[in-house]
């Protein structure tokens, strides 16, 4: 390399640059002409990540460009959600938004709310469950509910996610439906469902309110027992688990949902293409099989339906969080 003169190298560099410029892809080319990033606000391996990845792999096949999932984690979802909202609305960054978008702004953590996005499609919804340690004396949800009502406030400890997370709210909602104070059962914040289930099995907690699919491995291992599902209907994957309505006559349901959204201001033609591809992904056998095998619930909504679904959820969360004393907004 030593015998190359500096001028030759410069010329070569200039030529390389020129070639690069000459072949630059024209912006007018039909979307998508380059790889698309799918932002996932939660960690690799979790339920949201897996759902995002299965959707991305089908989109990749439908739209003939790589869709790569990027885990932008941290800040209890704030960081990832804001990365989706603040990206350029050119269709090359989309993301999976989750129920937390209807919660975080009530806690004063961010200004972002459901209207900060171009909603594309709702893909999934999971209801919370009630799980206890396998050696717990409470065999049915009725026994547990009676014991909770009889116990002094704070005696029972529950977990499933962090302070003010969706499963915390589920607990609060359930307690209120039984006419109890929101803090009648103490909430032990955890870094997600897996550590909470571990602590439940270690005998550190009385109950967990995470979704049944998240508790599944421990249930299968005979370390935990699912008592109820906080939803309108039973889950076909866990058909022995009754709903709160059947057992206690409580019509209470919230759910953790996941959907795909783009930054606000996405051009209409790109939106049309994406929604069509997402619908195809939702209807695909792969997606249905995958969700069924995990026990995840499936639920679809088109952009308009998704937007009103979120607006409705946002209203519910506002009052639930206020009641729980978690809202910073008065």
């Amino acid at each position, binding site marked *: 390399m030593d015998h190359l003169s500096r001028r030759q190298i410069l010329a070569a*560099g200039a030529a*390389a640059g020129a070639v*690069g410029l000459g072949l630059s892809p024209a912006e007018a080319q039909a979307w998508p002409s380059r790889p698309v990033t799918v932002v996932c606000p939660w960690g690799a391996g979790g339920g949201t990540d897996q759902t995002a990845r299965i959707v991305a792999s089908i989109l990749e096949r439908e739209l003939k460009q790589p869709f790569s999932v990027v885990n932008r984690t941290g800040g209890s979802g704030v960081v990832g959600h804001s990365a989706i909202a603040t990206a350029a609305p050119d269709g090359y960054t989309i993301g999976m938004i989750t129920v937390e978008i209807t919660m975080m702004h009530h806690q004063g953590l961010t200004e972002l709310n459901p209207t900060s996005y171009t909603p594309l499609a709702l893909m999934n919804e999971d209801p919370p469950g009630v799980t206890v340690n396998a050696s717990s004396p409470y065999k049915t949800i009725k026994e547990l509910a009676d014991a909770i009502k009889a116990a002094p406030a704070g005696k029972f400890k529950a977990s499933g996610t962090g302070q003010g997370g969706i499963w915390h709210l589920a607990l609060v909602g359930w307690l209120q439906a039984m006419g109890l104070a929101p803090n009648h059962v103490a*909430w032990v914040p955890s870094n997600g469902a897996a550590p909470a289930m571990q602590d439940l099995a270690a005998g550190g907690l009385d109950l967990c309110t995470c979704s049944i699919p998240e508790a599944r491995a421990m249930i299968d291992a005979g370390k935990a027992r699912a008592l109820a599902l906080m939803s309108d209907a039973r889950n076909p994957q866990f058909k022995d688990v009754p709903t709160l309505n059947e057992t206690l006559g409580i019509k209470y349901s919230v759910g953790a949902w996941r959907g795909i959204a783009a930054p606000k201001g996405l051009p209409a033609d790109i939106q049309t293409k994406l929604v069509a591809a997402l619908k195809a992904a939702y209807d695909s056998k792969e997606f249905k099989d995958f969700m069924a095998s995990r026990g995840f619930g499936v639920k679809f909504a088109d952009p308009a339906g998704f937007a009103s679904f979120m607006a409705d959820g946002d209203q519910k969360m506002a009052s639930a969080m206020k009641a729980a004393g978690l809202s910073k907004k008065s």
Partner: protein
Amino acid sequence: MKLSDRITGVVLALLGIAAFYGGSRLPPVPGQQVGPNVFPMVVGAGLLVVGLLIAFRIGRSFEDAAEAEIEKFGGPDHEAETYARKRRWYAFLPPALMVFYYLTSERIGFIPIATIMIAVLAFALGANRRLILPVAIVGAIVIQVMFVKLLRVPLPPGLVPMPW
């Protein structure tokens, strides 16, 4: 950037006070006996104590002993020390280049910015001048291909999109 123990100790103590104060202003959370304020306050108090210990040179004997042992494996080099003192401000070039990357890479693109970074640092390190530019260009392109193609990390194309 060698500072006396007195200075670093005092800086740590001040950091401890700041952490303690910052922590103490955090609001408590209902239902938690130990709020978000406790941990930063404990760490802050610890830093204050440790900072003062360092400022008063407690525990220094360990360091002297360790230095003596290290010296057995190659003693201090006074010529190297003078050189280091003369060039101490050069050390801040890499972080400055990282900030430069943060500010410009999105707009200008990865390859030109990485080329400039490599070239500037190689020059500062006294590399063979004939090699600087080719290494910088080839290095930037190889890293770009590796990350974009193999690892699917989207590096900004900027003004000079690559044909691949």
